[in-house]
């Protein structure tokens, strides 16, 4: 119990007749990075806003660090850092002045706030532009300033809504590194995103949203097993005659599908890499590539929504 920082039970949000968030259950543990995934309009932002008490809850309960955000929003907001999607700062103020305002709102004593702000700016590599006006900042710098705000706040939970949207690959990489830094400092992170491979690389667990419901929840491997079926996928590129037949002959192989010229995707109940290499060479073929395929979130996502659409 003590380790659950966010817990939602039957959390519901109605906009008129529309169920933007439809009775979801969700738990986020201390020290993990939890990802909310889902197509546009799935209800991710609405869920986040309800956790912060920034929009009314239509039903169900949500608790953040043991506080009810509807009744005790100040207690929740004192301990939770929030980076909204498309975060904005006061353009006419400098980075330092923007954070100073936040520090005032948080009631951090003046003597302490200067130091905390510099430490925070330092941790997101913005220390050298601390006194530049935010108007001159790039998108990536603004996102990092948002992270700095959370660091300065010494939040126990960080809620990041699409933190990487609109960032170039390098900026994305840097930002994810900072998110990992938050986790190293013991902060539980809840983030929503569309960038599946990025999410996969940082998240411990994910929840897949669809139409206001949590469709799938768990680690990436668990989701892959649920959606793609259990099994080890491997990729083989080889030259020779009847490679596919050779592969199918291996004990435990469940499926072999061609993936373009001279490449096959094999799913087996166990790790069959050694045996596959042996057989191909024995059959006179030449093996050019043999790769263990991690289940990819992208695949899970695509497959899930294909099936969901078929079912509908």
């Amino acid at each position, binding site marked *: 119990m003590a380790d659950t920082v966010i817990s939602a039970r039957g959390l519901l949000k109605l906009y008129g007749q529309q169920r933007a968030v439809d009775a979801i259950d969700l738990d986020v543990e201390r020290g993990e990075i939890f990802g909310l995934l889902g197509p546009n309009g799935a209800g991710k932002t609405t869920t986040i806003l309800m956790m*912060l008490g920034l929009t009314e809850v239509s*039903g169900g309960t949500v608790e953040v660090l043991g506080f009810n955000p509807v*009744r005790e929003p100040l*207690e929740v907001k004192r301990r939770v850092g929030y980076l*909204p999607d498309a*975060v904005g700062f006061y353009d006419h103020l400098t980075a330092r002045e923007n954070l100073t305002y936040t520090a005032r*709102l948080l009631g951090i004593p003046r003597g302490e706030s200067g130091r905390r702000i510099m430490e925070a700016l330092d941790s997101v590599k913005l220390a050298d532009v601390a006194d530049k006006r935010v108007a001159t900042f790039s998108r990536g710098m603004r996102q990092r300033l*948002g992270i700095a705000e959370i660091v300065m706040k010494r939040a126990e939970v960080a809620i990041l809504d699409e933190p990487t949207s609109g960032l170039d690959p390098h900026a994305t990489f840097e930002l994810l590194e900072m998110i990992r830094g938050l986790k190293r400092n013991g902060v539980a992170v809840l983030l929503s995103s569309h960038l599946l491979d990025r999410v996969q690389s940082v998240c411990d667990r994910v929840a897949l949203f669809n139409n206001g419901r949590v469709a799938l929840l768990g680690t990436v491997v668990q989701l892959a097993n649920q959606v793609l079926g259990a099994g080890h996928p491997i990729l083989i590129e080889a030259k020779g005659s009847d490679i596919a037949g050779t592969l199918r002959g291996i004990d435990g192989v469940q499926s072999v599908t061609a993936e373009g010229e001279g490449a096959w995707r094999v799913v087996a109940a166990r790790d069959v890499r050694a045996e596959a290499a042996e057989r191909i060479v024995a059959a006179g073929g030449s093996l050019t590539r043999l790769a263990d395929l991690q289940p990819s979130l992208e695949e899970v996502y695509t497959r899930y929504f294909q099936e969901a659409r078929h079912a509908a």
Partner: protein
Amino acid sequence: MPPSVAQRAPRRLGSPFTGLSAVFMKEFSDHLSSARMMVLMLFVIVFGALPVGLSLQELRNITESDPFLFLRIFTSAPQRIPFSFTASLTLVIPLLAIGLGFDSVNSEFNRRTLSRVLSQPIYRDALLLGKFLGGLATLAVALIALWLIVLGAGLLLLGLPPRSVEVARGIGFLVVAIAYGGVWLAIAMLFSVIFRSTATSALCALGVWLFFVILWPLIVPVLTLAMTPTDVAMGLGRLDETLAMIQLQSTLERLSPNTLFGEAVIGLLNPETRTLGPMIPSLMRGAILGAPLPLDQSLLLIWPQVTGLIAAMIVVFAAAYVIFQREEVRA
């Protein structure tokens, strides 16, 4: 049955004023350092200084002794432009207030700072009130500066210091002017809460201002006539019926903050004033020409106007507050 509808609004914990002073300080310093404030200040000084300068030239030539010579700086309309300082302020204060308030909430939406600020430990109450008080303090600074300029100019050009009762009346005038500005600031903020576009909210606030400046004085007599029986309207009614009609007209006029401000100013700065609103010959006899009222009597006279201004300010602010509470924070 949806479980939500039956749910009672739960009580919030924590003070609604947490963070109020932080918001206030930020708004105040933002306003004071902004280019917009410089422009507004220039505007106010030009509009204020012109009638004061002209009437000072005329007042210097008055030889007969006037115990309230200093107050005449505020109220006398110079011959060259028939526009007194206070009449000028009746127009300029709303513009100043609208200039300070028309984008106070919607600009936070548009800059996308609102959700970030509201995710700090602060209620919307404190945010809105802090913004209002910050604007009001800025307004007060501008008016006090103007007031001191007028006082200084009077000292220099008239060459005599104001009597303490004149200073007291002048300070009363300042307070009334700030309350009047507060009404318009609240109106401007109301529109800034309603409309996401700053241009729309500025237009609406200016529209209300124009309405009260130009249309309302024209509409009131029409309304009054429409609401009284024809014979009374044609001047054939009994005295009490005619009085009732005049009373109705002045009540309607007082729905405009401009009227309330104007009456309060007359009561304060013309110490001879014994009654406000409609001047009925029988009541007026000896009223204007009589001895000046002591300060406390004048204050008593304008008290309803001042409370009316303050009540209007609170009502409009409350409306803005209620709408703001229901608004979605996401842009």
